[in-house]
């Protein structure tokens, strides 16, 4: 009798022991991951001249708080450790070493800026710590052969510029182009992209390349110089403030070239509105993410989730800030990658899963734009669509354009 009742009980115990043993065997961790927690490191410029990008880090922090409130990822809470680097590469090195060696994070996520990430790339790769979804549009983050532990996120600036160039060659083959660009890594990537895109015709089509410094209070002088050369297409590769100034001043001078502005300076509320909607009519740009200030997304299910998140976790935040949209999308993608990792939270598996995204669409990306990565392509976003400013919003036109099509 006793034996009869005991036997199933023993069996149950045996099964439990065996099963949990098997589960233990499956669970694999590197530093920064445990049964209850995943530690993620980040550096952002919360102070100093680039502090406007600090909002990206703050959005990510709020996003992970939401994930934790919903139960975390496979039962594990995210601990997001974000330090201020003031956009100074030596400080980034100090902070990232603290993250890796003292806080022992599993990975470094969405650190902001090209020079800052360049400074830590070699270190993180030699330590085999993932440098995931770098917040910079430089092309060099997509280099899995030399830097297998570094992956970008944004569509790179060169490709974006090539797409504009290709579009011009097709629609306006005899265009005379003037280019206004910011004299730093960001502006120069665009310049290179345009030249690559135009190919042999670059020297005959580009009439003037004019650079400005980000510290200049007013860019009037550059616009006047460009106007004197009289191109019929003006390409503007700028950050938000100078982009808005360029559109406004061009109109005030009574000059009406076809304007193309880079994606990063195409926000409705922080560029087009300050520039004056009446001045911005007909400006061209390209996009892969939705604009938080654009009413056409008010009923979009994805953006509704974004707005709900903002209302609850970032009350009072400026919904129209492009940094918030970026922070949301990139965090959602990281959560997806960590979910895919399951119980194998090793650094190698994080990179493997990050390079195995298939047709993933975060809430913030335009309809049709999907994230795809592979062991040979470390560029999550590779598609975008052209858009034209009309009224008070952007109108998309043409189909999806992809980086791979540009390469052919």
């Amino acid at each position, binding site marked *: 009798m006793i034996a009869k009742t005991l036997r199933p009980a023993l069996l149950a115990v045996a099964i439990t022991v065996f099963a949990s043993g098997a589960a233990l065997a499956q669970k694999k961790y590197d530093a920064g991951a445990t049964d209850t927690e995943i530690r993620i490191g980040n550096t952002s410029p919360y102070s100093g001249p680039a*502090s406007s990008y600090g909002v990206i880090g703050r959005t990510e922090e709020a996003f992970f708080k939401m994930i934790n409130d919903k139960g975390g990822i496979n039962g594990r809470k995210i601990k997001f450790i974000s330090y201020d680097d003031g956009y100074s590469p030596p400080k980034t090195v100090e902070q990232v070493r603290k993250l890796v060696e003292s806080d022992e994070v599993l990975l470094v996520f969405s650190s902001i800026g090209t020079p800052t990430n360049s400074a830590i790339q070699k270190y993180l790769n030699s330590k085999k710590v993932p440098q995931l979804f770098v917040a910079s549009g430089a092309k060099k983050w997509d280099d899995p052969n030399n830097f297998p532990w570094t992956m970008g996120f944004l569509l790179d600036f060169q490709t974006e510029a090539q797409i504009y160039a290709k579009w011009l060659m097709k629609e306006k083959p005899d265009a005379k182009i003037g280019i206004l660009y910011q004299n730093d890594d960001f502006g120069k990537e665009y310049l290179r992209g345009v030249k690559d895109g135009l190919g042999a015709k670059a020297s005959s089509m580009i009439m003037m390349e004019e650079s400005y410094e980000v510290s200049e*209070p007013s860019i009037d002088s550059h616009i*006047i110089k460009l106007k004197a050369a009289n191109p019929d297409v003006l390409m503007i590769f700028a950050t938000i*403030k100078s982009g808005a100034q360029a559109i406004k001043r061009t109109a005030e001078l009574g000059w009406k070239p076809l304007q193309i502005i880079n994606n990063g300076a195409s926000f409705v509320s*922080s560029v087009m509105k300050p520039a004056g909607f009446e001045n911005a009519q007909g400006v061209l740009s390209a996009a892969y993410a939705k604009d938080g200030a654009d009413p056409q997304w008010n009923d979009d299910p994805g953006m509704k989730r974004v707005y709900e998140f903002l209302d609850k976790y970032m009350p009072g935040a400026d919904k129209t800030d492009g940094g918030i949209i970026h922070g949301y999308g990139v965090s959602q993608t990281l959560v997806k990658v960590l979910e895919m990792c399951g119980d194998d939270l090793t650094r190698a598996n994080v990179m493997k899963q990050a390079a195995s995204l298939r047709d993933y669409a975060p809430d913030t990306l335009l309809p049709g734009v999907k994230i795809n990565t592979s062991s040979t392509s470390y560029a999550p976003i590779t598609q975008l669509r052209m858009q034209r400013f009309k009224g008070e919003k952007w109108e998309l036109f043409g189909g999806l354009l992809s980086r791979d099509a540009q390469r052919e």
Partner: protein
Amino acid sequence: MELFTNQVLAGIATGAIYACMALAVVMIYQAIDHLNFAQGEMAMFSTFISWQLMQWGIPYWGAFVITLVFSFIGGIAIERILFKPLAKAPVLTNVAGFIALFAIINSSAGLIWDFTIKQYPTPFGSAPFLGSQLISTHQAGMIGVTVLLLLGLYFFFQYTRIGLAMRAAASVPESARLVGINTSWMIALGWGMASAIGSIAGMLIAPVVFLEPNMMGGVLIYGFAAAVLGGLTSPFGGVVGGFLVGIFENLAGTYIPGVGNELKLPIALALIISVLVVKPAGLFGRHIVKRV
């Protein structure tokens, strides 16, 4: 030639920004005998206050006047609370205090109002001025206000008792005290006036460069340069300096081949330094004799 004229006109328009800021710099230099690195940030903060008032529905000129009063009192308060305790500390310690103030204001403004750029209205409109598209009515208005301020300051320092007392308190504090001037309050008053002038500068500059917490970062260095070029003791010199810097910078960017465009600020600064080497007190400044 058309390009040349255009660049000169645009230089005057941009120079008006520098001239405006230079006036605030001269004002504080007259009061405390050194430069305040937080001056631009104080102006930015005042401009945000006026913007906030307008968001709350107060009309432009109402917001303008309230901001002016707020800035004047705020400037005095900053001096009384933060810098009076440092009155006996070495000059360089005071400079460190200015840097601390800079950090505090910049970071608070970022937290309160975010770093996204904001449109700021102009009372003068932005139509072309006298048919020239290069100078808008706003910029013409700005030049007008600068000239008015300049005249006001000139009379204040030359002909009013308090203006003279303030100059005396800054340049020869001990003698000033001997003749019964309350030097400590003169300094506070100087802070208040510099802060108020700065707020006017900020409110005039914001429609051109857009309102955001870092808007004065680039302007302040030009304001300093303009004031130093003109001679730190002369409001007139500061204004002339502002226009000269604006014009010269544009011409250097346009006509110096090769590096002119990329280096127009360094070239402009190098020129100012060369001027200072020849005329150490600036173009219109008074010479200072050292005593053993």
